[in-house]
């Protein structure tokens, strides 16, 4: 980009909303992953009209544009792979409307999930999908990546909550999709198409989404099993029995060890633990918890701990919530977090095979999973400065992907493909399906200027 380009951009957003400083360019060229990019300018538009002008400019000059929310992607999604413009939505951060009567809100793309839930809390409402980064990640980013989280097993992902979006197309048109109603079958589901498109089809500037009442109570049961397979089977049976848990999380033995060290929490010697949460009305929750306990007993549970109060629930959750922090105990600097997902009947096998891959390569892959929906997070650990260890970690990662596909699953349940999983994309999608997707991309973005070189393997 030359000075004339920069001046033109500054004319659109104002000089205070543009940067070409080395430090800013470097910082905005990264996300949590190892992927590095090369931003030439960072812009912070304040309105959809400004976003539109930026995209018109980009189309004319063929300079790529990379939309960015909180930059918390775990797949390199917002990284500017080619010299171009990082379009940060963080200054479009207003909640525009909370429509209590129709149980929905309208917010600009840059508001964080936590901020939305903080605003909904006094009204006894909430939006249920809760990615681990909910304190920071933005509603725009969550919709663009169709984020999930631990409660997806009951409440689904953002796709299930979005009613409509305001987006700017790569060619500059501002369009609004969807309606204020929960049901709508008129025309193609553009909202659905844009949800999960990883910022490659359009820049989301506003999101309208549904909310629901906070459940009367939520209670947690923790169950310890001899083997991960026992735990996996119990999880599967709880699902099949229709007990509808709001979360059902599995922690493997490595994680139990790191957590107990980190929180000085005592666990019985076990091969895996399940944390099962039920929410709803008090009586109903109690009933479902009792039935879940029975199921666990039938699968050779070693010990069951049940929370009687909110405080106890929180304490039992603290084990899960500290799972990631506790990995610090293992002393590795870097973590590759994957999100492979398999059909729920394959949970025990997937878990067994992750451990088998880890031990074959002699590396650590502590794993927890949203097992109610078959979504695993194997954490492949390595030291960034140790090249050999890094390569082994990547090899193990590839094997994990292949295993998930072999079991009928997906390479990504909730993080997206971005850059990191591009090379594995064809494991899951054949050339004909990929060709349709590429045609859709070309239809939206004829000049390939919006978040190019993401999702699909290089042609």
């Amino acid at each position, binding site marked *: 980009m030359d000075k004339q380009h920069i001046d033109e951009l500054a004319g659109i957003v104002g000089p205070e909303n543009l*940067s070409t*400083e*080395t*430090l*800013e360019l*470097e*910082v*905005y060229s*990264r*996300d*949590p992953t190892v992927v590095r990019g090369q931003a030439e300018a960072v812009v*912070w538009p304040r309105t959809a009209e400004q976003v539109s002008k930026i995209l018109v400019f980009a189309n004319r000059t063929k300079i790529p544009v990379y939309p960015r929310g*909180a*930059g*918390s992607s775990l797949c390199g999604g917002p990284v500017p792979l080619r010299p171009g413009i990082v379009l*940060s939505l*963080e*200054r479009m*951060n207003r909640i525009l409307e909370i429509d209590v009567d129709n149980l929905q809100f309208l917010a600009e793309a840059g508001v*964080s999930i*936590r901020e939305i839930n*903080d605003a909904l809390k006094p009204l006894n409402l909430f939006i249920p999908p809760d990615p681990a*980064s909910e*304190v*920071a*990640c933005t509603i725009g980013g969550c919709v663009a990546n169709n984020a999930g989280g631990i409660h997806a097993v009951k409440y689904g992902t953002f796709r299930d909550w979005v009613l409509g979006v305001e987006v700017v197309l790569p060619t500059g048109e501002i369009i609004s999709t969807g309606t204020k109603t929960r049901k709508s079958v008129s025309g193609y589901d553009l909202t659905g198409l844009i949800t999960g498109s990883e910022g490659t089809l359009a820049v989301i500037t506003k999101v309208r989404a549904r909310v629901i009442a906070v459940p009367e109570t939520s209670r947690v049961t923790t169950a310890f099993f001899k083997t991960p397979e026992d735990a996996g089977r119990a999880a599967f049976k709880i699902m099949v029995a229709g007990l509808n848990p709001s979360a059902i999380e599995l922690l493997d033995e490595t994680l139990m060890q790191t957590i107990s060290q980190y929180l000085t929490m005592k666990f019985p010697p076990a091969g895996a633990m399940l944390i099962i949460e039920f929410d709803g009305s008090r009586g109903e929750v109690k009933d479902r918890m009792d039935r879940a306990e029975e199921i666990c007993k039938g699968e050779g549970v070693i010990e069951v701990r049940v929370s009687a109060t909110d405080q106890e629930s929180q304490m039992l959750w603290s084990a899960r919530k500290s799972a*990631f*922090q506790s990995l*610090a105990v293992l*002393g590795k*600097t*870097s*973590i590759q977090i994957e999100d492979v997902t398999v059909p729920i009947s394959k949970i025990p096998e997937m878990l067994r095979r992750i451990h088998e891959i880890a031990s074959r390569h002699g590396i650590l892959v502590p794993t927890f999973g949203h097992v109610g929906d078959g979504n695993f997070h194997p954490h492949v650990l390595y030291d*960034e*400065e140790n090249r050999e260890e890094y390569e082994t970690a990547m090899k193990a990662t590839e094997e994990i992907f292949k295993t998930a596909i072999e079991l009928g699953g997906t390479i990504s349940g909730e993080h997206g493909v971005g850059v990191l999983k591009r090379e594995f994309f064809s494991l899951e999608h054949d050339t004909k399906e990929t060709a349709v997707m590429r045609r859709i991309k070309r239809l939206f973005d004829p000049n390939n200027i919006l978040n190019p070189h993401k999702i699909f393997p290089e042609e």
Partner: protein
Amino acid sequence: MSFTPTFNKELTYDLNKCFRCSFCRSQCPIYRSKMNETWNARGRMMAVQLLREGRVPLDEKVLERIYTCALCKSCEEICPGLVKVTDIVRDLRRQLVEAKRGPLPEHLKLYENITETKNVLALKSRPRELQEAIDKLPQTADTVLFMGCVAQYVYPRHLTTLFKILEKTETDFAVLKDEVCCGSYLAELGLAKEAEEVLAKTAKILREQDVKRIVTLCPMCYNTFRNDLPRLKVTPKIEVQHSTQLLEEALTSGVIKTSRPVKMRLTYKDPCHLGRYAEVYDAPRNILRMIEGVELIELERTREFSRCCGGTIRVPYSELRNDLCRSFFDDVPKSKVEGVVTSCPTCFHNLYSTAPYEIKGVFDIHEILGYAMGMIERIEDLTGFLE
């Protein structure tokens, strides 16, 4: 001229542990003001890494990011990697001084102030009412009340009130007649040697007077004596208490009692250096709970998530402090809260100077307690709420 920071093994490990997750965006008060990642803890840690990799030069922009970290530790409360962000920033500032690339000229003025006047504010003499009260105190005692620069020279009433309460607790205490700044400002700006030199002056007197206990009113002084004084190895072990801890004990054991109600809905603002740094969250709240009439309202962001007032941000960036205070007051539900209480003279100063019209007052906890004990007759701004 290039500058490549190098850290010891522990801090290098910490720096590497920052995997740029972005959670600190939800906490960093400077980020909230700037809405630009380079002003966030993550951005600062990346800046350090980029300096190490030689990908960014040490220019004015980078220095700005380094010196505007409020060292409030808010980010550390949410950091999944438990990265010691503030230790890294402090060490980086120390390295800048060693490499003669820091601190900023304005910062050196603070050191000059202390050498010339014994206080950071460069004030020549204490307010008269405080000096008179000091003159009545014994020359030495087992307990020394360390007064701190801000209370001594700007808010003497906080101290004179505390003197009166301490007398009631029958604590024999003295102050250092020639008290020298504890040096915490200097340490936080990376002037490690200068900070040590300044603190050593106090350490020497403490040893000579065989002091057994230090009580501080300022949370920053409190941390200096708790953490830095033992490192000098000049004094034998000295107990360090914050005034609110001592007063809570005295109230709980019944040595002192409150007699006058304060009918007010108050919220307590945790000072970063007392809360996140020292985990003293309950003592000040318990004091307020023991005052009849006080209705203690907790903010949504409280205790470890309490907002920073920007107290450690120095010139030339002090205008950021107003932004941070504004952020704090944005979170105060004006319809529910009448006054804000704090136990730190610096927080008091910043909040007092920026409180919006709807807030009836910003109060020092010692003054509120002094009033409730009938020891002082008036607190500014409190008219109409007392009795």
